[in-house]
């Protein structure tokens, strides 16, 4: 704390602060040079991110696997019995299988609604330091991706294309706090606005206060003008609780996204919208309760009861 500073030091600090304020002003005024710099940095980083994704793939979901330990316990027991090489191979294979399963589910979803899609692999997760929820995929403008296209995954809506670079794209996840989407409730067709909250929950605000919402209601994307940024009919999530506070201007509810944003390996960008609105065709099937077997014992009384002494 003995530093007393000096005129030179103060001048340097002032120059740097003024430079940063100048940058903020330029960016807020929409100067193209700064957009070009960000685009250039993504173009340079893209090959490194692909390599990083390959290197990190065996352990990138380690923590989310730990939190879902109950589900993967059997697999873990199997893995413990094997040696390191076999374990690595198995994890890589598991990764590929999971991606294949995700691809298949995405194709099923897109096929049902007649979406024209372009599948892509997630090559980088966005940093949390800016409180934003983004990811980068390995397809960009060279593959036909444009800004404001809908991004889906195996279970429904994943987000929207925010920025496009030649060989990669930045996806704004539906969980991002700045994310807004018009939704409708499957069946009743009531409409509302869904806002991301930075987690796997979102806030739904209904336009009409007279409608009744209930837990379990399924929300689908309402679709945008000319299908951008959102194509209609994509499953978004389901209502988990309804806020029925008296005097509220609009009815609101907490919604759980169908998508598990921390486990996205592959996604698909909707590059062509369906000719007709798929309506409720993509509403996920409700889980069927496991049937409980009932045992019926039939007793036929004997024709001549035995006499008791």
């Amino acid at each position, binding site marked *: *704390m*003995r*530093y007393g*500073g000096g005129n*030179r*030091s103060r001048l*340097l*600090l002032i120059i*740097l*602060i003024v*430079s*940063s*304020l*100048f*940058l*903020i002003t*330029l*960016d*807020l005024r929409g100067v193209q040079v*700064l957009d070009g*710099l*960000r685009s250039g*940095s*993504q173009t340079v*980083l893209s090959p*490194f*991110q692909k*390599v*990083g*994704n390959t*290197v*990190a793939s065996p*352990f*990138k*979901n*380690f*923590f*989310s696997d730990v*939190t879902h330990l109950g589900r993967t316990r059997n697999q873990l027991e199997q893995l413990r019995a094997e040696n390191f090489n076999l374990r690595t191979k198995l994890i890589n294979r598991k990764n590929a299988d999971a991606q294949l399963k995700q691809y298949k589910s995405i194709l099923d979803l897109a096929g049902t609604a007649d979406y024209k899609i372009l599948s892509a692999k997630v090559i*980088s*997760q*966005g*940093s*949390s*330091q*800016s*409180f*934003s929820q*983004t990811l*980068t995929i390995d397809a960009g403008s060279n593959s036909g991706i444009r800004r404001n296209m809908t991004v889906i995954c195996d279970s429904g809506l994943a987000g929207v294309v925010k*920025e496009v*670079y030649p060989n990669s794209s*930045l996806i704004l996840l539906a969980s*991002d*706090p*700045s994310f807004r989407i018009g939704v409708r409730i499957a069946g009743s067709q009531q409409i509302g606005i869904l806002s*991301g*909250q*930075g*987690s796997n929950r979102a806030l739904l605000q209904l336009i009409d206060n007279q409608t009744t919402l209930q837990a379990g209601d399924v929300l689908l994307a309402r679709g945008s003008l000319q299908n951008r940024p959102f194509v209609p009919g994509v499953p978004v999530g389901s209502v988990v609780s309804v806020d029925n506070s008296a005097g509220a201007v609009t009815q609101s509810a907490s919604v759980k996204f169908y998508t598990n944003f921390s486990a996205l390996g592959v996604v698909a960008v909707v590059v062509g919208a369906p000719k007709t609105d798929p309506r409720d065709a993509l509403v996920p099937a409700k889980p069927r309760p496991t049937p409980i077997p009932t045992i019926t014992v039939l007793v036929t009384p004997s024709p001549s009861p035995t006499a008791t002494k």
Partner: protein
Amino acid sequence: MITRQLSFSGLIFLFIYTLQESLVNQIRLPGGGFSIFIIFALVWSALSAPEVGAVAGFGAGFLVDLSPSSSGPVGQWTLIMILTCFGIAFLGFGDDKSRGNPITIVFLVVAGVFLSEIAFLISGALLGVNLGSLSQIAIILIGMSMWTLLITPFTLPIFSRFHAFTFETGSRI
């Protein structure tokens, strides 16, 4: 001499930035994880004179702003990092007891990360950036500070060697 220092510093900063963007960002850690690049910039400043800290903060903040996943306008992180890095360098400068003490540096870095995130939140709110729910913000703030506290002691010896090599000071932590 200054050309050598600048070029070495630039290369090391670019290397750590690439590491952050290509590898560290791939791993989803609970509580928001950590930024090895911000930790590095703050350690570098803690070991440097205030002028060097401010310049390092400018470079580091500008690189964070260039990150495609960074929300907010270009220049926001630059401004925050200039002030944070200068502040950390200013606190440690001239006091050899605090500069040579790894525990002090670790706590300076943790405080720096926490305060820079708070500054990002406040300036983001002023600039109209959507930041999410309070609970999520609190989780990320606490999570990032805890991760920084955990990671910094392991990275400090490596970063101090880089610093000593660049500035030819010969003193390491």
